[in-house]
Every structure is written in C-alpha cells, then in structure tokens.
C-alpha cells in the first residue's frame, strides 16, 4: 500500500482527520526546508504539500506568490525540490509528501526524468495546478507507472461530468478548493462546502481534502467536520514570512500544533467519512 492510503486508513480507524500543511520549497531558504518539514510532522502534520516555486503562479494569491519569489531568489529548481524530499526521506519513511506546482518546470525536466527521480526521492503524489484532467492523460500514465498519485483539484463550479472524469484519474486524495478565487482569499463558505462535499461523496471514492481560505483553528475544525483532510497554506506561509529566521521553526510549530488540536476536537459521524474498502 502507498504511504497516502496507509495514512488515511490509519486515520479512519482512529476517527481522525488529516492535517495537510503547504509550504513552498525554498522559502524562507533552501537550507531550512528539511528541518521545517520534520518540524511540521512533529507539530502534527499528516501529509506535507511542498510547493514547487514558479515564476508565474497564476492561481496563487499574493502570499504564495511572494513565497515563490523568495524561493526563486535562491534559484530553487525542481531538481532541488526533489533533492529536499530525498533528504527528508532519509529520516522519515512514513509521512506522505505531495508536490504542488505548475506545468512548465515539469515539462522542462521531461515527464520521464521527473517521474523517475520523484519516485527515487520518495514523492507520493503530484498536483499540477494548470493540468486539468483533459490535458493530463499522458501525464497521469507517467505518474501511475511510478506509483505516484495524481492529485486533482475540484472546485465549487466543477460540473458533475467533470467530477466523474477526475474520479477516474485521481489517486491518493482529491483537493476540493473551497472558494472561487486564488489561494489565500478570505471568504470561505462553510455551508456551501458542506453541500458540495455531500454531492462529491457519491462520486469520489478516495479521501477529499479541503483547502483555500482556512486561516485559523475554528475554520480548520469546521472543515474537519466535513472533509477527510484540511489543507492550510497561506496562513502558514504568512507565519514563515513574518518570523525572524531563528524563530521560524518554533512559530510554525506552534501554529500547526494549534490547528492539529482544533482538528482533533472533531469526532465525526462515521457516515461522513470514506469507507475503508475504498482506500
């Protein structure tokens, strides 16, 4: 079993929800990434989403844009990001790592070279923001050949037909974007999330994570009532941005820990969760 399904199986048994922090590889600086990843795990992260910096992050709000720019000042390449995951794997063999980024760096490296190297470094899933399922057929084949999970986004505006298309391609978990707009936006409509997730459950058999717009324990907890995983990005990056370098690890730890505590306060009705057989 893959690291991602092992994890969700265990969480389900313990009636817990996954906490998935997002950070950008190379922010605040390349040398701090592996310690930061371990720190996230110690603070209670179940999966790490690692952003691959790109010069033109069209789907991201200002916080993640700035984070990407800081990483690019250090000339962090996709190869460097993979090396970071490889180094993290030397002392953590169980926490899933999912790369999230844009198509062009992957295309520049080539599907074959990228997927082979990603496998060797211990990458568990990849989400390419600007690869919708229609343009992903060949890409998904390459990922699956290396047993890397293709992760896809679903949005409030995704029609049923497309949900089914995503369901046919996606592995690991799907990532439901909880609002219209870019990452880091402020308005999250919980009522809408609840309604949409209800509709998705019948079509999607793998876990559903919800992200975009989760900024504090209260929202994290409310989302955890509804989803299998809670993804938090911009809020963590803000913490990295505003912390002096020497305090990044402690401040991020404190923040992630508080999210963990909030999420663990949830005791979900079993019906809201995915069935074990689907994992």
């Amino acid at each position, binding site marked *: 079993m893959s690291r991602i399904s092992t994890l969700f199986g265990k969480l389900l048994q313990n009636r817990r929800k996954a906490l998935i922090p997002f950070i950008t590889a190379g922010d605040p600086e390349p040398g701090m990434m592996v310690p930061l990843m371990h720190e996230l795990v110690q603070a209670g992260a179940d999966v790490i989403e690692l952003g691959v910096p*790109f*010069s*033109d*992050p*069209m*789907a991201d*709000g*200002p916080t993640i*844009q*700035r984070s990407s*720019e800081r990483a*690019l000042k250090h*000339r962090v*390449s*996709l*190869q460097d990001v993979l090396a970071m995951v490889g180094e993290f794997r030397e002392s953590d063999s169980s926490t899933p790592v999912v790369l999230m980024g*844009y*198509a*062009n*760096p*992957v*295309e*520049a*490296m080539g599907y074959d070279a990228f997927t082979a190297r990603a496998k060797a470094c211990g990458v568990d899933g990849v989400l390419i*923001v*600007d*690869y*919708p399922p*229609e*343009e992903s057929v060949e890409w998904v084949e390459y990922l699956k050949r290396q047993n890397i999970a293709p992760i*896809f*986004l*679903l*949005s409030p*505006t*995704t*029609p049923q037909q*497309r949900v089914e298309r995503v369901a046919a391609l996606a592995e690991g978990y799907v990532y439901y*974007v909880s609002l*219209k*707009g*870019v990452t880091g*936006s402020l308005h999250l409509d919980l009522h809408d999330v609840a309604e949409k997730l209800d509709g998705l459950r019948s079509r999607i058999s793998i876990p559903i994570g919800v992200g975009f717009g989760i900024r504090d324990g209260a929202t994290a907890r409310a989302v955890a009532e509804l989803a299998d995983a809670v993804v938090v990005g911009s809020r963590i990056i803000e913490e990295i941005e505003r912390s002096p370098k020497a305090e990044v690890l402690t401040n991020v730890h404190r923040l992630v820990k508080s999210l963990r505590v909030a999420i663990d306060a949830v005791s979900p009705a079993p019906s809201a969760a995915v069935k074990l057989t689907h994992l």
Partner: protein
Amino acid sequence: MKVYDLPDSHGHFGPYGGIFVAETLISALEDLRIQYERYRSDADFQAEFAHELKHYVGRPTPIYHAKRWSAQLGGAQILLKREDLNHTGAHKINNAMGQALLARRMGKSRVIAETGAGQHGVATATVAARYGMECVIYMGSVDVERQAANVYRMKLLGAEVIPVESGSRTLKDALNEAMRDWVTNVADTFYIIGTVAGPHPYPMMVRDFQAIIGREAITQMQEDYGRQPDALIACVGGGSNAIGLFYPYLDSSIRMIGVEAAGHGVETDQHAATLTKGRPGVLHGNRTYLIQDENGQIVETHSISAGLDYPGVGPEHAWLKDSGRAEYFGITDEQALEAFHALCHYEGIIPALESSHALAYAARLAPALTSDKLLLVNLSGRGDKDMPTVARASHITF
C-alpha cells in the same frame, strides 16, 4: 485543396494551445466558449460588430503604397495596411470591440484587461467608456513607469489602472493578475485578453476578431492591384495583428513572415524572439514556445517596443512555424529604429515601434526582389506613444 480548420474543439493547434488552467477557471472558460460559439455565427452580433468597426473604429483601413520608400530601397513595392488609422491608433481595438460586444451579450458589467505598452489597455478603456462598463486595467509597475502617457489616457477614459508588483512587473505578470481577478469576480466580469494568447477559446476568438484585417486586404488588393501580394509581413508580440492579416490567407500559398523582437540580438539574452530562441512549454493557459531558463522558469525579455516584450507567443504561430506555413525572423532594436526613421522621412508616417520591426524586415527583403513584387506589411499602429522612447534612443530630451 486542404482547408485550414484549426483549432480543434479543445483549442489545439497541433501540439500547441489547449486549456492549461486551474480547475477554478474551467467553468468560466467553458461558458465563454459556448457563448462565443453561439455569437460567432449569429448574424445580429456580426452585423453589430461590423457596424461598430465602420462607424466607431473607422474601418476599413486603407492599403497605402509606400512609393518613395520602395523606390529608395530599390526592389519590391512595399504596401502598408494602415491599422494605425484605427481609432486609438492600433489594431488592438478590433479585438477589444469584439470582446466588449460579447461581454455585453453575456450580461457582464465589468471588463478587465492586461496591458504592456498600454495600447490594449487604452483600446479596452475606450470600448468600456463607449458602452458604460466598469473597467480595470492591470499593468506591470515597470510598464506604468515607462508608459506614463498611456496610463493617463486610460484614466481619462474612466478606467482604473492597477500597477502589478509581482514577478518581473511587466506584461506577463499583468496577465497573471488579470486572470486572478477574473477567477475571483467571474460572475460579473469579462476578461478581455489583448492578444492571441491565453487558454482556449481566447487565441481563436481574438484571431477571429482581428481577421477583419486580412479579409479587407484580400478585397482591397483585388480592387486596387488586381492581384494578391507576394508576401505578408507583420510583427509578432503575442501575434494578434499578424494572425489577423495571415488567417484569411492561410489556404493560399502566399508567403507569410512574422517578425519578432531580437532586442540587442538573438545571440544575447536581451531579446523577445520567442519562436526563434524559445522552447515549447506551458504558460498563461496554453502550450506554446516560451523564453525560459533550463529549469522551466520564465525569464525576462527585452525589446525597445513594449508591445513585443513578451516571453510567449500565440499557440497558432507556434503551429504555423512548426508546420512551415509561416516563417519567423528577428529584427533588433537598432534595425527597427532605422525603419522607424525611414518611414517618417520618406512617407510622412510615424509608425509604432512594434510595426517598425515588420517594416525593417520588409526593407531587408525588398531589395532582393524585382520591382513588380508586392510586399504587404501590416502597419499595426502609429508611433505617437513611442515619442519618449525614440527621443531617448536619439539622445534628445524634451
């Protein structure tokens, strides 16, 4: 005869084009595609577009025989398709008008656009004023500095100009920011992209709106010269004026030449010659040639003309290059300036620096041809906006 019928239903021109955007934008693009497909063949819509182009934009634009310059160059005759005579001074308004009419039919009250030189921003602000729509223009903060007069023009026309501080603070970043606005405000907002770039259906839609250039040329050439030209020449930034001229001619065998900005030279890293020096990749919603580093990061480009200073190119041009149907060459800043001054001097026409790249290529080609040959150059815009740049290049201060 093989009839050119690209893009396919998913917006592909061979391996290029397509829809490479986040899921959050998919339904907006799908809606746009459906609405555009509908109005594309709607007689009322097309009639209104034609009416506005005639009475507001000032079409048809003439074809002018640059006799003195041709004689001076010695060789082929240079003919100019005078897009500089359009309202607002460039071809950009053909497309802005078409998209604004579509926005109205779709019930959108707010239009947004990206702009580099400011020409597309001015065209969009103009049509927004014409139809009483709210207008927001995204412009890289570097370009806001460089193109102060156009910023003021847009403001006079009632647009809000938002300087973009991310990335390289130029056109590509303005496009990213406009997309972010669109995905956030899609309910009431129409995004008017300024060139044949972006995700499907934009490259096709912008091409269709600009194709009036080539359609008029076919008629005018027949009327005025009794035949079609021997070659078409146009500058290529994103590629909208070029495709507008080329598209109606694609099923012919007439030579088509796109001219890119070679900046300080394609052998330097200071140019915007995407098709000459770029590699295929994905940016701004489509697959096309891109100027990028070895890690797939988009790098800054350079051209003396802000309108050609873009690291991508419309996907249809990528296809026309690979398929061999069109040829693409680079012209340096210096060569463009030389052609700029020549046209001022011999013809009393001040061309845009973008268009001067096409002129410069024509000036290189003409002497190699006999004097009965006809080169049709798309004079995509007038050069009033370029006064500060040209003056600076000539070491003149006002």
